């Protein structure tokens, strides 16, 4: 049987030869242009940042669009596309003049009419935009570069609204695009931002490609958060879709990608041990967990029962169970996020420590009959998966009966829209997370809307809270605004709109031997980043 042995030998030799050949031919020619290869937290599916609130689409928006105003790292609102602006003495007329030389990606100049149409589209969709537009009587172009916004009554959040840093961001689009009904997706992706979306190279599930916009005119100030000069320092940015976290971490360590936006916390030790990788906390305000209750059905249709739940919960167990490493989380009593202008402890300190005896006493007072709390448990997202079991444990210790139901996140977001009884497909409670930039004030933060049917899921209903929010919105004095924000926080804890379950941070991993200059911000920004490896 000699031929059999010789065949086996040949097979082994061939198997040995493949990697040798591969080793000889691994080197690939260097690209002529500078390219940044990035793995984002998810694949880009929808490219209309007004149509959806998805963060990946917001990030796409920051690549190709620009904003009239922007927020800097000190949370100050500064002009971005706007050059100068003024407000009349009666605070009813705002006049905005655009910077010189602003162009769309197709070469046409950016005009006041474009901006008016864009603000209108955003204002018909976004909750903060809708609030602003409810105060706007008229917007009118004065000339190609100047337009006015006429208000019905003074409104304290005009500039803050136009500088809204997170979903939905008021991005400016050409008039022909912005006239698309807000309920319909746009199909023309021309913006005026520092990068151009390469529609033909966009392969959903594979990669999204942006190239530097040569005619972009950055501001002269240094970049700071979403404000200042947006200087594109690479020719091309590729967002590579990589749904498997372990693969993405391996690809970063092997140098096949340059930036990994959101490595899961359980894989951070691998990256901490990789010499060429740096972990950057580019969003120092981080994120905040939320425990949301449904006001429509027992037991959370009772204020005392909601207060009992808040008494039973505390932030540290949530943060330890999900994030683990205290370097990446903070116990924070402030509902409007720690280290921000509206950071207060009043009322919010109830979430620092569980008080099970108080919870049980409140339940007794409320006449709680053991109705199970249907708690929706999202199982597939690492930053949410362990939250519901912790909540269930704390609530049980506080005297509740809990029916925790597991499902994937997409099922949860579908089910939370249902107003039916929990026994008929509805729900009592769920946990989610917010990017801090979304919840910096009681108007942009959806959780404080207590407008019953118009409120966010859970549909809280409270007239006093709405009065406070309206007073906050119309107040133009900063000190009084702060006082109102404090009252809103106290009221939110009193009536139990939701519980803030802890602040946490998501580091971004970058190859420090290849790139530098990544800015901090509420979203990942790709201007100002340059390659240092030639």
């Amino acid at each position, binding site marked *: *049987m000699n031929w059999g042995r010789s065949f086996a030998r040949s097979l082994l030799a061939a198997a040995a030869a493949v990697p040798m050949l*591969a080793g000889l031919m691994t080197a690939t020619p260097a690209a002529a242009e500078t390219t940044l290869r990035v793995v984002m937290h998810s694949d880009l599916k929808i490219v209309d940042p007004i149509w*959806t609130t998805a963060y990946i689409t917001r990030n796409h928006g920051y690549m190709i669009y620009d904003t009239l105003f922007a927020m800097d790292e000190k949370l100050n609102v500064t002009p971005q596309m706007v050059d100068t602006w003024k407000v009349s003495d009666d605070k009813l007329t705002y006049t905005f003049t655009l910077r010189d030389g602003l162009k769309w990606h197709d070469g046409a100049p950016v005009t006041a009419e474009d901006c008016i149409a864009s603000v209108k589209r955003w204002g018909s969709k976004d909750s903060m935009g809708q609030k602003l537009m409810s105060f706007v009587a008229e917007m009118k172009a004065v000339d190609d570069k100047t337009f006015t916004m006429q208000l019905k009554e003074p409104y304290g959040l005009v500039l803050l609204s136009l500088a809204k840093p997170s979903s939905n961001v008021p991005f400016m689009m050409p008039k022909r695009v912005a006239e698309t009904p807000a309920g319909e997706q746009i199909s023309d992706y021309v913006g005026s931002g520092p990068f151009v979306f390469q529609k033909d190279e966009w392969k959903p599930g594979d990669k999204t490609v942006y190239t530097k916009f040569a005619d972009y005119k950055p501001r002269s100030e240094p970049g700071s958060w979403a404000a200042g000069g947006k200087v594109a320092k690479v020719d091309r940015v590729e967002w*590579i879709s990589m749904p498997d976290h372990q*693969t993405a971490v391996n690809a970063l360590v092997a140098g096949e990608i340059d930036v990994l936006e959101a490595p899961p916390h359980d894989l951070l030790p691998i990256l901490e041990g990789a010499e060429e990788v740096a972990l950057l906390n580019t969003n120092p305000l981080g994120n905040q967990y939320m425990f949301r209750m449904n006001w429509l059905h027992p037991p959370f249709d009772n204020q005392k029962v909601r207060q009992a739940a808040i008494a039973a919960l505390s932030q540290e167990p949530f943060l330890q169970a999900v994030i683990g490493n205290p370097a990446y989380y903070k116990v924070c009593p402030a509902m409007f996020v720690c280290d921000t202008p509206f950071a207060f402890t009043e009322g919010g300190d109830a979430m620092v420590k569980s008080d099970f005896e108080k919870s049980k006493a409140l339940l007794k007072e409320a006449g709680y009959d053991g109705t199970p709390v249907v708690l929706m448990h999202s199982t597939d997202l690492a930053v949410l998966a362990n939250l519901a079991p912790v909540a269930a444990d704390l609530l049980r210790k506080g005297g509740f009966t809990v029916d925790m139901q597991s499902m*994937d996140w*997409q099922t949860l*977001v579908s089910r939370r829209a249902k107003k039916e009884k929990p026994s008929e497909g509805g729900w009592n409670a769920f946990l989610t997370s917010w990017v801090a930039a979304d919840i910096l004030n009681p108007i942009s933060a959806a959780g404080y809307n207590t407008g019953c049917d118009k409120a966010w899921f859970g549909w809280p209903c409270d007239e006093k809270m709405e009065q406070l929010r309206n007073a906050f919105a119309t107040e133009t004095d900063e000190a009084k605004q702060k006082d109102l924000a404090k009252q809103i926080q106290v009221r939110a804890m009193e009536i139990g709109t939701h519980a803030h379950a802890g602040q946490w941070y998501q580091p971004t991993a970058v190859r420090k031997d290849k790139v530098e200059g990544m800015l901090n911000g509420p979203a990942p920004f790709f201007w100002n980043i340059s390659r240092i490896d030639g």
Partner: protein
Amino acid sequence: MTAFVAQRLLATIPVLVMVALFVFLMLRLTPGDPAAIIAGDNATPVQIEEIRERLGLNDPLPTQLAIWAGKLLQGDLGESFFFKKKVTELILQRVEPTLALATTTMIITLLVAIPLGVLAAYRQGGWLDRTVMGFSVAGFSVPVFVLGYLLIYVFAVELKWFPVQGYKSISAGLWPFLHRLILPSLTLSVIYIALIARITRASVIDVLGEDYIRTAKAKGLTNRTVLVKHALRNAAVPIVTIVGIGIALLIGGVVVTESVYNIPGLGRLTVDAVLGRDYPTIQAVILVFSFVYVLINLVIDLSYTLLDPRIRY
């Protein structure tokens, strides 16, 4: 034969209709709302309702079914809820990577599994046979993703012989194409090598006990001729059957491998569509898969006539 082929092709129509109906109803009766997913985490109930209306998801089920079936009859598989692209375009973008992965996997599998199976059968009870059977058990037992990560760690992260992930079209050159396919194909082929080597061994052992093999040996034919021309050929029908089933299973099997190696193929398109409740894409992909399954079965049945003259249709 022509009548048989025509009959089988006609039979695909009711199969596809049943699949289409089943998938359509299953998707709409299971939990999940594409509008809520499209709207994003921060959307209000009103925004979600607007999107439901825009997508026609508030229409009665028979209306939705009629609209979809009407488009399907005109060859239009619909538009993805998410990407604002035709589903046909999405599928065409993803066919090449999956086809490339499946083809290289089957080539590696056949080149390794059949000779190993034949040799193991010939050396029944010997060290080679035991090794092949041991490998076979291991091949079945190790999950694809474990093997994938293991190969990535050794050959991509440590030795740097291969890239960790990604796919390059063959239009970028033969070596870049193969360079990225070797590890995923090896990963995926292990389970099929285990399966096919085992079946080949069993089939050849059965045939080696037949009288005509003894006759062939008595005639003085060489071992190679006896094995290849007589034993293997007569053992071919079950082997081809299992290869055919293997190819069909590959369509589902690529999902994990495509995720681990980040290959943008049909498997990942399916998973993404299911997670996003992208009804038009799921429906189209499953219809295409069903059609391919039916075709593969037909090709296997036809190949029997070439391998065994006694089989006629």
